[in-house]
């Protein structure tokens, strides 16, 4: 199975927005998705990180901050690209049972 990226390098934009709200970059990313009505399912094995990921309902990104984050899109996937024939072929040949 293809490995997902384990890190998303914080950019100055994300760090500034996080600092403005007293939150982490990860929390800002989750909040940005939630405000776009995307259901998020973050993974962690650390209880403190699980709690951090859950603490995203006590702040709100402004319209300007939402646009700033959207402007970071490079059009390329950090890990698995469903448009890459080689990656799709690998996934298509994977069997669970």
């Amino acid at each position, binding site marked *: 199975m293809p490995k*997902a990226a384990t890190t998303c390098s914080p950019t100055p934009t994300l760090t500034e927005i996080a600092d403005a709200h007293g939150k982490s970059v990860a929390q800002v990313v989750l909040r940005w998705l939630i405000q776009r009505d995307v*259901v*998020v399912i973050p993974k962690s*094995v650390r209880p403190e990180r699980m709690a951090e990921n859950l603490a995203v309902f006590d702040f709100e990104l402004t319209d300007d901050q939402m646009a700033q984050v959207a402007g970071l899109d490079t059009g390329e996937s950090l890990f698995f690209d469903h448009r890459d024939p080689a990656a*799709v072929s690998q996934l*298509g040949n*994977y069997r669970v*049972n």
Partner: protein
Amino acid sequence: MPTIPTVTLNNGVEMPILGFGVFQIPHEDTERAVNDALSVGYRHLDTAAAYQNEEAVGRAIAVSAIPREDVFITTKLWIQDAPAEDNTRRAFEQSLTRLGLDHLDLYLIHSPSVTSTASGGPCKPCTSKARSAPSASRISTLTASSTSSTITRPPRR
């Protein structure tokens, strides 16, 4: 413990907008991780047959004192294992058995854009089989994951 906001799916089902994912958690750590997540306040668990950890998720759910109706549970069908129609029902039953559940809140077709058949893939027959099987009453919502937005519609608040 915070109440997690929900989104309303197109069929009226309420789904917590934040859940706990178990993809790529080492198998030996999965049960403990799910236990911790439930203790911290997660009420939505996301797994898949392809993650090969449904049993561990099921064990964590079993030892939890949280009522079943208070946890939204999702798993996914790996369609490369279900090219024949009856395999879909078998895969669904296997997932329920591994999870130790009698029903799912959400059953997803995992990566339906990935197919190896010239006919367009098993997506349509496995979907229809999942809908028509007697066990279909044990799925609240059936749809697809890891696919384009042209196939699924966004949820409404």
